[in-house]
């Protein structure tokens, strides 16, 4: 008997070990590592309250990672995603979906039992189930705005299942969700566990496309400057150890390079949080400029580019 139990544990750990990645919420606390399932039609018989997961044990089931992996990870079951935005857009994965329901599931490993605040926005209505218990239900027609709904909840020590159900009428179909401490602080002691079948290259691509830049034209001390913040919009996998180079360029409205004001090689990209870089251009005329972020791999190959149109006056 002990042997059988040992074997089962071994198989489970192999299954988990092979297909499980650890993520942390992004710098704002948004969870961007999810399993999506959908779409389900809302009809005269099936309203948004219909339990479309009844064949899997229902919405109030405490989902099991093993079962999910064994079912297969694809569009026909649970689809793992780590999108490049904190807004999870179901239509990106399932196409245009009027009058539909989609689910998003994730696993949160908490180092301790703790009260938390969950903040979410959705397009349109939303239900949230934590460890099989519905903790939030907002039947509403709206666009997604972060933090519109605030829910108090408790995380158990160990693995917690968080299931989000979003219903769509017309148009946009998305949600965003962040999890914070009771005092609105980022939680340091949680990890997001996502069973997935991503290749390294897929992860590579997804992570870099989620890198973004936000620029402020700063005149607080009368010396004008651009302050650019580089950050990832999505969760970073904790074991992602690639080396990349980040560059920031200032370009004028006629596409001429004015200067390259930042270059940095980051050896372990998993550790990257965000970066704030100041640029003080000299003697540039008022007008429209472009700040461009270039991301290069170990071989200096350009992986992705992002740009901000900025104004100087």
């Amino acid at each position, binding site marked *: 008997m002990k042997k059988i139990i040992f074997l089962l544990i071994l198989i489970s750990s192999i299954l988990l070990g092979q297909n499980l990645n650890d993520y942390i919420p992004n710098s*704002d*606390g948004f969870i961007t590592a999810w399993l999506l399932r959908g779409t389900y039609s809302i009809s005269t018989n099936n309203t948004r309250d219909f339990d479309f997961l009844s064949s899997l044990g229902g919405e109030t089931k405490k989902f099991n990672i093993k079962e999910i992996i064994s079912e297969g990870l694809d569009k026909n079951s649970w689809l793992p995603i780590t999108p490049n935005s904190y*807004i999870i*857009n179901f*239509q990106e994965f399932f196409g*245009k979906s009027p009058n539909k329901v989609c689910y998003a599931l994730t696993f949160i490993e908490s180092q301790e039992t703790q009260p938390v605040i969950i*903040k979410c926005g959705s*397009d*349109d209505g939303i239900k949230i189930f934590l460890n099989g218990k519905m903790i939030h239900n907002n*039947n509403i*027609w*709206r*666009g*997604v*705005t*972060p*933090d519109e709904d605030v829910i108090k909840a408790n995380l158990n020590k160990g693995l917690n299942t968080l299931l989000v159900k979003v219903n769509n009428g*017309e*148009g*946009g179909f*998305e949600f965003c969700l*962040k999890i*914070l401490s*009771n*005092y*609105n*602080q980022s939680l340091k002691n949680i990890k997001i566990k996502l069973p997935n079948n991503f290749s390294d290259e897929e992860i590579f691509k997804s992570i870099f496309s989620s890198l*973004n*830049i*936000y*620029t*402020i*034209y*700063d*005149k*607080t001390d009368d010396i004008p400057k651009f*302050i650019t913040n580089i950050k990832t919009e999505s969760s970073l996998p904790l074991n992602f150890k690639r080396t990349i180079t980040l560059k920031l360029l200032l370009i004028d409205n006629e*596409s001429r390079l004015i200067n390259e004001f930042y270059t940095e090689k980051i050896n372990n990209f998993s550790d990257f949080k965000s970066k704030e870089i100041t640029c003080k251009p000299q003697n540039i005329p*008022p007008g*429209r400029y*472009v700040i461009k972020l270039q991301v290069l791999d170990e071989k200096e190959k350009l992986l992705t580019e992002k*740009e*901000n*149109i*900025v*104004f100087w*006056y």
Partner: protein
Amino acid sequence: MNRKVIMLFLFNFISITLLLSQPNTDKILFELENYQPFKIKGWEYATKSINENSLMDSNNWKPFSGDFSTDDSCKWFRANFIIPETIANHNTKDERLIIKIEADGFCDVFIDGNYITSFNNLKGEKKFIAFEKAIPLSNHNIFIKLRQSTIISRFFGASIEPELISTTLSTIDDLKLSIQITKLLTQNPKDFLKYKKFSINQSKVSEERLKELRDLIDKACSEIDIQSLKQKKYNAFNQSVQKAYEIMNPISKFAKEYTIYVSGNAHIDAAWLWRWKESIDVAKYTFLQQLKLIDEYPEFIFSQSSSVYYEWMQKFHPDIFKRIKEKVKTGNWDIVGGSYLEPDCNLISGESWARQLLMGQSYFLENFGDIALLGWNPDSFGYNWNIPQFYNLAGIKAFITQKISWNDTNEFPYHLFWWTGVDGSKILTYFPMSGYVNSLDLNNLIGDLKQSEANTGRKDVLILYGFGDHGGGPERFMLERVLKFRENKFFPNIKFCKPYDYLKTMSDDYLKTIPVWNDELYLEYHRGTYTTQAANKAGNRRSEFELASAEKLSSIATLYGKEYPKNNFFDAWQKTLFNQFHDILPGSSINAVYQDSKEDYEFIKKIYNNEQISAIDYIAKLINSNNIKGDPFIIFNQANWLRTDVCKISLPEKYQNKKFSILDENNNSIPYQISDNNSIVFIAKDIPSLGYKIYSISDNTNDNITDKDLAASNNSIENKYFNLKINPNTGNISSIFDKVNKKEILLSEGNLLQLFEDRPTMYDAWEILYTGVKWDLNKADEVSLVEKGPIFANIRVKKSFLEESKIKSTPTTKFPSSFFTQDIILYNDIPRIDIELHADWWEERILAKVAFPININNNYATYEIPNGAIKRPTTRNNSWEKARYEVPALTWADLSNNEYGVSLLNIDKYGHDTEGNTMRLTLLRAPIYPDPHADRGKHKTIYSLYPHKGSWENAGTPNRAFELNNPLITKFISKQQGKLPLSHSFMSVKNDNIIISAIKKAETSNSLIIRLYESTGKEQATELALPFTPKSVYETDLLENNKTKLETTSNTLLLKFKPFETKTIKAEY
């Protein structure tokens, strides 16, 4: 909902989570969350009559999910509740429990079916002892009858609290509010910019100072004795709160460095998802509500634009109008906007802008004693680059809008800036931080203030509030919020104000430091509105030009004694201006609105047709035409330049099937051609500026007309300017060779019809969203030469379309759904290629364009805007360029370099794009919302290629586009003995780049008003020749107020124009 739209709202997104946490502050806020009254939930409402004697048995209840009621009679609310064992940590057993009702209006309260009490206060607290000795877990029903007492009664809910801790709960409520206010106020403005890709931070308050203040809050919170609260030692708790307030005192001083100005407004769409008749009611009830609020809150100020709404009140509800006039005098009612209504700001002509402002400001001046000083157009879909000039010329000092925050791609950088127009005029422009619909909640108020501080460096902000679209405006609860916040000593100063008064608080020195925006305010959204509802747009274009022509003719006739039909023109312009409303002309209204506008355009047409004929007949009687051979007809040129153009006149019955001649003013026979619709077509040469020539038709004079037919075959036409070839397979124009300049104009086949799948996820009529599916109509059903003669030749191309995926029932599964006929017409002596398109259009969510790949390279193309032109990139190098994938223009677009160029002219289209070398004109759309029938049916339009040597400025593209839109007017006249010669110019301008857009009688005198603009962007000194020497001449503003006296001793005036300047001249006779 649509992602793009939502991202716009992110722009205004403020969240407590932006705040850096302070441990004690957050902890106290968290703890205090447990101390709240018990909210009764699960409300239901009933609108049908409820039997008060048997409330428990009444039916007809429905779940109440909203927070307000707009019913105009009484409404019942009910809920079932169980008294909890504890409320706010306090045992309820045997306690006296208070119920507090949150509602505006009078109400009667029943518990468990028994009448308990009534409240006759409209606003303020409504609380009563509901239970003397509460029984925990006992079940009860509460019924509330809310009686109509104001225009809108509101019900928000009710809560229960033990009387013993009622005061403490109020203290806690105030404390929470104070902490929330101070937390928000002491954040670094940078934190509020977190979700913006690009933002500006000019705040001069250092992070060190803010941190000191945040630490004070935290220190104060550490003094709050939560343990006493938990132990029900309420006095000790209350004392600790007072101590905390003392610690926080410096924050109060800091808060009062800031000021929030709030301006109430109601956005009323004159027609949209409802018809204009309903809007009269919308205005009525909105205004009634605002008047009532002004009576109740003497400080309250309400701003309202659009003279049409005031006119409606004056006409249909004079009592309301009278009260508005009183409130304007007391300063509580603020008139803004200055125009007849809030028009589309891309698609209307320069002359329409003049009329919108003239009609609006004249009305305000006449009825309220003053004009509006603030331009107000918060909801139109982009703003043309000439608005600063139009506003300056109409006495408007500043402009407010918010729509550009809806951009789907780029964030507009500034909220307060000088907007420089195409002519160099400047107007102070303000974008509120969060739109015009705001209900003044705490996060919005402080969030907007902090964003304003960051963006402008100022410690104040203007916030527009009030419900809108279908009217509404501010409501009592919003005003109550202002008063409540004002009572809190940690809240910044908050003042009701007129929006313009806020802008007036800014010093001249400060205004010298704000940024300048020298470009159009292009809205990166709603790009489909340049095209949707094509027939309606054609109605607008025709009305604008034909009314102007009718006025020109009538004004000239008036100088010779004819009575000026002022009222008819007023009525016609009024309807034209109304249909320019920013949901009518853009095509975003329901079908019924377009039924209404169609009737209006028929009415307008009747007026301009009648007035043109009447004026021509009058003028004709003055012409000495007795000696004309045959039957004379007049050719009138509405343009202020000597004009050679195509001329058409119906073939009189008596000449049908006979040989006849067309004779010019010198009795010389000229070539003509009879078109297939029985018109005589000829080229009229050198028709005088704003004048006429008398031609005639007579029996054959046997003159030898040697002109040959144009060289034309089934797939080619040639005149002296161009050799044009058609590909018989594709039906496209395969070559246009400029014979004079020896240049091939097309890079590849042009006049190509392109259809695009166009499926916006929402805002169907407004938006363009290409799915990537595209059809190039490269197969002609038929190509044939249908007309050929000495004047013109016409090759007709027929095409059809059936979407592959379209399922059609048998037996005609493959029969096309839409059909197109393109008549490609080349005239002798006219350097223009006209294409007359007939479309039989029955698609759904498909957009049609016509494309011309032009053999010209330039990074910029030029487009006509009202009384001006704008260069826009043909490249797509960055997000700003990419976002301009569809742009608005009036009658022409042009792609030129210094040596050569091609202008694409049109008679009733507004949507364009030029990417790389390809110029395209958007022809039709087929959205399904809000009008599922939009654009389905038959359409006719004309677009025209005008290839030219040199730049568009030198080639006179604006003049050629004017000519295409204003064909020479012809009319048979009777022979008269008169004083006027057979050829005469009534008015002219020396330089063709100066275009006369209007000649009319002055609004308040018999003087003649002449409006002119420089059309090519260069300084121009010129001479205006008037019909007679006037008694006096003034340059005026658009409102016809004299500005500068112009000296003249003859009928010639010397005028100096700045580039793209619009001038109005008043000549007294």
